[in-house]
């Protein structure tokens, strides 16, 4: 058996074991469906409501991706723009870090008021603000935290600041940016769902979960949670794939070093 397959055994074993124990425990102890539906019940709910789950899942995904694009795009622009002026970045970075510690989610009702509660844009804006700060902070960090020896080397070549930016700072920043983007991928879906709790269109994951929970149909609610989680993981893996393609040297270098 290859080494890779052998690596995958423990997590898979845990998955199967937990599912199995869960199923047995619920049956054996007669735990009320209220708290913890059986995995098989959740699986049935998934297949029964597949169409509806696909629709609400897609609508929420649109909010998440839209907000991710808006916030991420703005963050990159601001990050690149401020990296040029060391003074500006030194003032902006601590503020951005402080702003990142504000519970952005509290702004969801405001966004509903500004953009219209039924408009998916109101949810996108919550997500956008959520992902803006981590990506901007990491972009700024990646562009400014360059090995001083590299800067000295570039000085010996007597090149322009633009050349240094292009050949050293930007490639240096890419791994930092991707780290923030990966974290933001997961955040954006959760942000969208939480924003939905403050009201809005009905055919979204957040509302589906609330409705099903209100009617005590917990297997359905859990099925929706599984869908949300799966979408998040898929989004993350796609970004991971993009990273592998864009930065082939980074992943292999890390693997090589950790080998």
């Amino acid at each position, binding site marked *: 058996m290859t080494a890779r397959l052998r690596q995958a055994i423990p997590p898979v074993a845990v998955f199967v074991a937990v599912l199995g124990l869960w199923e047995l425990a619920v049956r054996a102890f007669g735990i009320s469906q209220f708290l913890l539906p059986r995995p098989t019940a959740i699986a049935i709910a998934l297949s029964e409501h597949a169409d509806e789950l696909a629709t609400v899942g897609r609508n929420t995904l649109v909010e998440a991706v839209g907000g991710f694009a808006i916030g991420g795009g703005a963050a990159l622009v601001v990050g690149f723009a401020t990296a040029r002026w060391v003074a500006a970045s030194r003032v902006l970075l601590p503020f951005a870090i402080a702003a990142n510690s504000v519970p952005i989610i509290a702004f969801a009702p405001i966004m509903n*008021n500004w953009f219209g509660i039924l408009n998916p844009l109101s949810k996108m804006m919550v997500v956008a603000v959520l992902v803006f700060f981590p990506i901007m902070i990491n972009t700024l960090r990646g562009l400014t935290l360059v090995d001083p020896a590299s800067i000295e080397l570039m000085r010996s070549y007597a090149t322009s600041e633009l050349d240094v930016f292009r050949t050293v700072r930007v490639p240096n920043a890419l791994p930092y940016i991707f780290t923030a983007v990966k974290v933001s991928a997961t955040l954006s879906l959760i942000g969208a769902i939480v924003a939905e709790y403050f009201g809005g269109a009905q055919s979204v994951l957040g509302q589906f979960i609330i409705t099903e929970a209100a009617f005590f149909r917990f297997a359905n609610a859990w099925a929706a949670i599984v869908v949300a989680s799966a979408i998040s993981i898929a989004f993350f893996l796609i970004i991971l794939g993009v990273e592998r393609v864009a930065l082939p040297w980074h992943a292999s270098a890390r693997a090589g070093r950790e080998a």
Partner: protein
Amino acid sequence: MLRAARALLSFAAFLTVIAVIWELAKLLGGDPVGEWTPPFAWRIANDLNMPHLWDIAGSFAAPAQRNGPPLGLLLAGAAGFTFREAFGGFVFGAALGLGLAIVFVHSSLLERALVPYVVASQTIPIIAIAPMVVIWLQAGWVSVAVISAYLTFFPVTIAGIRGLRSPDPRAVELMRSYAASPRELLLKVRLPAAAPYLFAALKVAATASVVGAIIGELPSGIRDGLGGAILNFNQYYISGPEKLWAAIVVAALMGIAFFALVRAAEVAVLRGRLGGSAA
């Protein structure tokens, strides 16, 4: 000392800039004030969506409900309630995170088996699980603390694993040459080496714990905290938009204050170390 003063000054300056932009936007596109009619009409800048800053400030002194206590007092109480949940979640989550990190560093089998789930756990929308946790535990604010811990433990676990593994292999060999026990190695080498990493994660965790506490309150029917206040003032937005903004300001201040607290602790603990602490 000078650094802190300078940070505070630039923060105040930035707030002033925001305030100026706010009122300028309203001046240009908001509702008429006295004799002045703005040249534009932006829906976002009207008094309902963007109350005047002095109205927001003033609302703190006014009663939230008829004959009730001033809003400021109400929000202070709500903030205290939420802070208790957030702090509890923070402590519990940090302890859990560090504990998991220590376990994983000592058992690569457990690490391989469980880390994927630790990572995947953060993809589950906690807001969906929150009502079930609250009902299951039947413990009021403690349940929200548990929810808050759920968001807090993850960054601490990941940073803990990296930090505990960070010491130079030669330092580990040195301890072996002293016939030090694994416990001594952990306490004298790994944990001190992990401290900078852990503090970076704790700053993230501070924010996450406040977010977790507010999110945990929302669907749980708990009305005593800031989450409840936000929901409440959102419902009655038309009758007093500045109250919702006041609640948001308080939530923001709490998030920043908690972050600053952890940062101060970081500076104190990591004082004098090579590299000190990053921003």
